[in-house]
């Protein structure tokens, strides 16, 4: 349980929220209903709304469950006692802007979804050491079988490519997005937007893509050039492989000579439940 120090706190919070008196819910519910009217206009919350909503979301939690219609059982479909917001079958209810903002934290390559904020390489180094280095190593070189984040540039055509943020990842937005949604492992959603900018900046620095005095922000985010941005192309199996792989198969006398064994799995001996399994384990899957 020590992996999840926030769990006890979270449970306590949940208990408090559940115990909130009905009277206290009323204003929140009205606000939520008013906000629902704006929901149709919402496509993607801008950064300011995201910030605001993040603050508001804990307070709004009781309203979340009673917003569109207030059934006694929040899991009873709203449409059971009236009309849902769905356009064909009248199922579901309108999503509130703060609900959308709470969950819609994705960031696209064009920067859409980036929150306001900034973070420096200098701050990022401290944050990285505290939050990331136990798995990724102090310099992003990776501990054990955890993913390396730095190095490997120019190795993609090698026998053993080293795929890191610097050598492989085509878009910087993916780094920010992924840290924001899933890192640190076992303690997701614990870093602030500025802290994520700082850690992202430090990872760039570890890859020699920005200097030590660099400060990453929403404004300069798209100026960072990722070395392997041009290294990807769309699946072309249909045009490249299918002409060969749709030839009528040979059924008889398909080989001139009797085939011989060229490689044995037993040589490596990495199968579980066999002697010495994993002794010469190949690189990990991530």
């Amino acid at each position, binding site marked *: 349980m020590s992996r999840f120090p926030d769990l006890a706190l979270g449970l306590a919070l949940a208990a408090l929220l559940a115990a909130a008196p009905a009277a206290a819910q009323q204003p929140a519910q009205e606000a939520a209903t008013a906000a629902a009217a704006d*929901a149709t206009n919402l496509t993607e919350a801008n950064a300011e709304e995201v910030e605001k909503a993040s603050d508001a979301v804990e307070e709004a939690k009781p309203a979340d469950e009673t917003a569109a219609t207030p059934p006694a059982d929040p899991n009873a479909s709203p449409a059971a006692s009236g009309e849902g917001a*769905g356009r064909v079958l009248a*199922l579901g209810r*309108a999503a509130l802007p703060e609900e959308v903002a709470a969950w819609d934290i994705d960031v696209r*390559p064009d920067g859409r979804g980036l929150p306001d904020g900034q973070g420096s390489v200098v701050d990022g180094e401290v944050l990285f050491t505290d939050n990331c280095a136990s798995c990724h190593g102090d310099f992003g070189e990776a501990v054990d079988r955890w993913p390396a984040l730095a190095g490997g540039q120019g190795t993609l055509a090698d026998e053993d490519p080293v795929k890191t943020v610097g050598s492989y990842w*085509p878009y910087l937005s993916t780094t920010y997005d992924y840290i924001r949604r899933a890192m640190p492992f076992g303690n997701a959603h614990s870093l602030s937007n500025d802290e994520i900018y700082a850690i992202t900046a430090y990872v760039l620095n570890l890859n020699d893509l920005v200097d030590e005095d660099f400060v990453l922000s929403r404004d300069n985010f798209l100026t960072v050039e990722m070395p392997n941005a041009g290294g990807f192309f769309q699946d072309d199996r249909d045009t490249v492989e299918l002409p060969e792989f749709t030839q009528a198969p040979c059924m008889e006398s398909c080989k001139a000579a009797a085939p011989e064994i060229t490689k*044995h799995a037993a040589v490596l001996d990495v199968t579980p439940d066999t002697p010495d399994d*994993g002794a010469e*384990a190949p690189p990990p899957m991530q």
Partner: protein
Amino acid sequence: MTDSPVKETAKDAGRRRFLTAGLATGGALAASALVPARAIAQGADPLIAEVQPWAVQLGDGVDAHPYGTPISFESDVIRRNVPWLTAETMSSINFTPLHQLDGIITPNGVCFERHHAGSIELSKADYRLMINGLVEQPLVFTYADLERFPRENRICFLECAANSGMEWAGPQLNGAQFTHGMIHNVAYTGVMLKDLLAEAGVKPEGKWLLAEGADASAMTRSIPMEKALDDCMVAFRMNGEALRKEQGYPARLVVPGWEGNMWVKWLRRLEVGDQPWEQREETSKYTDTLEDGRSRKWTWVMDAKSVITSPSPQAPIRHGKGRLVITGVAWSGRGTVAEVHVTTDGGVNWHQARISGPSLDKSMHRFYYEMDWDGRPMLLQSRAVDSTGYVQPTKDALRRFRGLNSIYHNNGIQTWAVNAEGEAENVEIS
């Protein structure tokens, strides 16, 4: 639960000695093969000649197992992990015991698991599914809402794109479970994604869909709208019962024929957009690096593939020469499997295998090839041909296009070398 009233007797022990005496020696993986190859008649079989305890005493009552699990003799039919593959088990994978299964349906308890932040417990009561982005009306559904949409049933395979990924550079793992076990084939009950999206009203510029999970990895994948509206489902049942926790209870995405990573579990959000999001799992992972260092992206479709599940390294031949049933599974992300061919001589001559059971679009197929084995070593392979005419290639043919480092989408023909004792090994051949 009470103990079984059938107790072991001295007679049992004697029977066990009789049984094991008939076993051929050798075979590191033979521990599970406790059924003798052939009973050599040395007088009357005590299993027949003597009254056995199960024919005397009473078995379990109906209340003994309110939710049934396999009998103790089958306790080795389990998912297995390959510990060296990943840093730890919460972001890892285990493998379906293909070598011990038959038919086309994978039992729920042995469907392989792949998690990126552990398998979470999310109740139906706490479940919410949001649709947002380029829609006329952003919506939130409860679990109860999902059950009010028209339901569909469909059997399809889910194969991890990394299935057989450890075999690109050469044979590495000795067992169909490990080389091919990142797959399962399940009957899903759920609702069509297009019906859910219609409730929100997709705007004309909405060409992509982002699916997101509720676990701590918040798994995300971009799916083209054309596929989303075609045959994708949000499923809440597998093989009739609720989804297993490790398969995304209470609701997951089903993306027939496409790589398993896109089948987002614990599905919590669907966002409509006008371009892909290029998330971690579709850039840094699940992209296929070719020999020149450039990488294919959006390799969603699973190519046709097959494997002989028995005999195989974990399922050696124990009965000696004579009648032999060769069996395996085949599937294609492009349609049905039209034919499966089996060779016993490493691909010099191929034979039509017999497909038995339902032949369904983007589902596993079961094949059999029955023969008389003369007891000589064999090089066993199977080759699937799908309904589009795609012929499962050799591993070397794949390597000519992709090199050794593409990790994903290895659908090459698998070879098992069976020796005169019936033991099988994962090999490659000329």
